């Protein structure tokens, strides 16, 4: 039932149905690992506990290249075959116990070479462990949510299950660290992360500015780059001080010659007026026109694309990044590939 030892590729047992474990398993499978996913549902594909109901079926592509088994039928078999497993990926220590009937301590004692990799939502210790919540609550407790949005208005969440996926990325890298160490020692170890921990790590600049300089960073676009309205949407216009001469050339508006716009500090102080001038130029352009003209002058700018527009994007098409996949019960679904190539091949060479 579990993929048997047939190569040097790691054999992974992925337990449960959280986004964070599913995405981690997906990344490992893309690198050639043999991933066996254990679910509790009686049917397959099983829905995942995402925050978006339409995602639950659409995200079935996370199951790519995985063998799926049902724990109720096979738990005894799973536990007895753990000797063939290199990595166990789970959403909590409790999940491991529930699915395999073994505690983490018992697995470590019996299978010392096995890497136990756990990504929880709120941590595996302390009062937080038992909190009720999901994506929004993890984002709030991580500190990152307080940095998203505009000053004076409520903090926002990022689109998509970003805290769970941050945990998946952390766990993926943690597993690689553990496997590297195991190459030398022959011994496995335990890798632990959480959605809160991984997301807090993303907001590291807030921590160092507070510790190093006593500054509390506030959310919002109050300096430097601006978002500009165009005739058909918006463009992220990430100009910096060194691009200011190019911005003036692009916009060609005498009002920008005013001395108050000569420095970044001055432009930040007169930000509303600056945006008004820039938008008097950008509103007559499409996003594509502003993107092209900015890039011609080496100004970092990018159109705000909708998800529906990504399919027609030249760059993503040229790199064959998006692919159409047949998903049971849904037909053809457009999904992303993994975001790397190895020697020119997507995923693993």
């Amino acid at each position, binding site marked *: 039932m579990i993929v048997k030892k047939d190569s040097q590729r790691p054999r992974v047992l992925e337990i449960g149905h959280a986004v964070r474990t599913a995405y981690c398993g997906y990344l490992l499978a893309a690198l050639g690992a043999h991933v066996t996913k254990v679910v509790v549902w009686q049917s397959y594909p099983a829905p995942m506990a995402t925050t978006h109901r339409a995602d639950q079926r659409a995200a079935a592509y996370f199951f790519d290249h995985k063998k799926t088994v049902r724990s109720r039928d096979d738990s005894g078999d799973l536990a007895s075959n753990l000797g063939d497993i290199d990595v166990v990926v789970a959403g909590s220590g409790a999940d491991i116990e529930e699915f395999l009937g073994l505690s983490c301590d018992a697995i470590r004692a019996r299978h010392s070479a096995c890497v136990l990799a756990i990504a929880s939502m709120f941590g595996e210790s302390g009062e937080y462990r038992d909190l009720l919540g999901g994506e*929004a609550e993890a984002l*709030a*407790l991580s500190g990152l949510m307080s940095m*998203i949005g505009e000053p004076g208005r409520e903090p926002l969440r990022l689109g998509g299950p970003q805290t769970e996926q941050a945990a998946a990325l952390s766990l993926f890298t943690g597993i690689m660290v553990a496997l590297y160490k195991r190459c030398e020692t022959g011994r496995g170890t335990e890798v632990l992360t959480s959605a809160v*921990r991984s997301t807090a790590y993303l907001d590291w600049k807030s921590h160092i500015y507070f*510790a190093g300089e006593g500054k509390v960073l506030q959310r919002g*676009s109050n*300096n430097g*780059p601006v978002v500009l309205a165009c005739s058909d949407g918006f463009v992220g216009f990430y100009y910096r001080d060194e691009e200011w001469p190019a911005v003036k050339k692009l916009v060609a508006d005498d009002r920008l010659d005013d001395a108050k716009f000569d420095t970044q500090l001055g432009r930040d102080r007169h930000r509303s007026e600056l945006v008004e001038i820039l938008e008097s130029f950008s509103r007559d352009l499409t996003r594509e026109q502003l993107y092209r003209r900015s890039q011609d002058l080496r100004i970092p700018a990018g159109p705000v694309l909708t998800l529906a527009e*990504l399919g027609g994007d030249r760059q993503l098409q040229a790199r064959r990044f998006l692919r159409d996949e047949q998903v049971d019960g849904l037909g053809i679904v457009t999904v992303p590939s993994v975001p790397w190539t190895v020697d020119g091949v997507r995923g693993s060479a």
Partner: protein
Amino acid sequence: MSSGALSGLRVVDLSGITAGGRTTQLLGDFGAEVIKVEGPRRPDPFRHWTGVTGESGGDDLGSPPFRVVGRNKRGVAIDLKDPRGVATFRQLVETADLVVENFRRGVMEKLGIGFSVLRSWNARVVLLSISSQGDDGPERDFVSFGGTLEALSGLMSVTGYSPGEPVWTTSKVNFPDQVVALLAPGLAIDAVMRSRRTGAGTHVDLSQRESVVSLLGSLLAATAVTGTTPQPAGATSADETTLCCRCQGDDEWVVVTVGAAKEWQRLTDAIGRSDLRVDPRITEYSMRQRRADALVKEIEAWTARRTKHQAMVELQRRGLRAAAVLRAFELDAETPARGESFHVRVPTSAGTSEQQISWPFTIHSDNPPEVRRRAPHVGEHTGEVLTELGFTCDEVEKLHAAGVIAGNMTVGGSKSAKS
């Protein structure tokens, strides 16, 4: 050599600013030996970064974010535009497992150190290239920063207060760089393990834009399934209502998520507003989602009389998903509740120490991550590293006098090297 889990992994770090720098920092935290190579006259711009506060912070360690991404690295200054610099760099590469770069596309080849050259020097070397849009394609040479990638990836189109107000994370967060730096170390380690098995190095090409799109994969797939393009909706999401409510104090908030009818009942009980349950405008889930703004006002009558922590505790006790919206400086005080610290003390050049965020995961072994050294000055370890490579004192001095290398030419307080 460190005692960390990645002990024995040798990394030559050509990266600048965040994505590459944070990648190699994580490798260093877990025990890899990281040698940061900078140009003597064009060091890493992150050393004088004004992007966050508008201030650059003084000397080459004055920039707070650089002090984080530079920790656990040694610094070497070599002019790669000079053939003698390239020859010196070659000796570093010959001893390395991994080279990391995030130059503009084409710069490595222009310097004469593209992957084919690196591999001719060291057949098992891995090159990790982190770039905005990947190594090929019509827009590979376009300039971008994290913010533009949030736009190009679609993230901004699903983040904001409304469809007419897309929001980016700004340079204070720069989300694309941060998530890439979680993925890239794992890819690099995997590639190194393969090269050690096979004896053949590889080139890993990681696109930051694609990385962010891949994190929107389930929404992208849902778009294809439903034919409906997701829109930004404040703190809430498509199938559950997350309400962000103001609490006592300035800019203090609590989030509470209400999906099922049972949760709606619990919430109305908690805030003493059972009358809301029979309000015909919000009896159904979809109605509540459409009227989220009005609901927030009703709930704020209750939350505004409480601190965010009090609100969180009371709502959790009622069986509701709720959390205080913490700010970074508050996370340290939450350590007992979390049961784990997210911070580490790091030495400074002034002889003191400062608190930095630690690591995104922990490993339970005899080889925990640690901070062994602060970020280096430009070329602080040039003499030391070249001496280890076998350069003689005369060779080092000649290169230094010619401006090919720069920084500190001493080893342990005395002049380098073998004579």
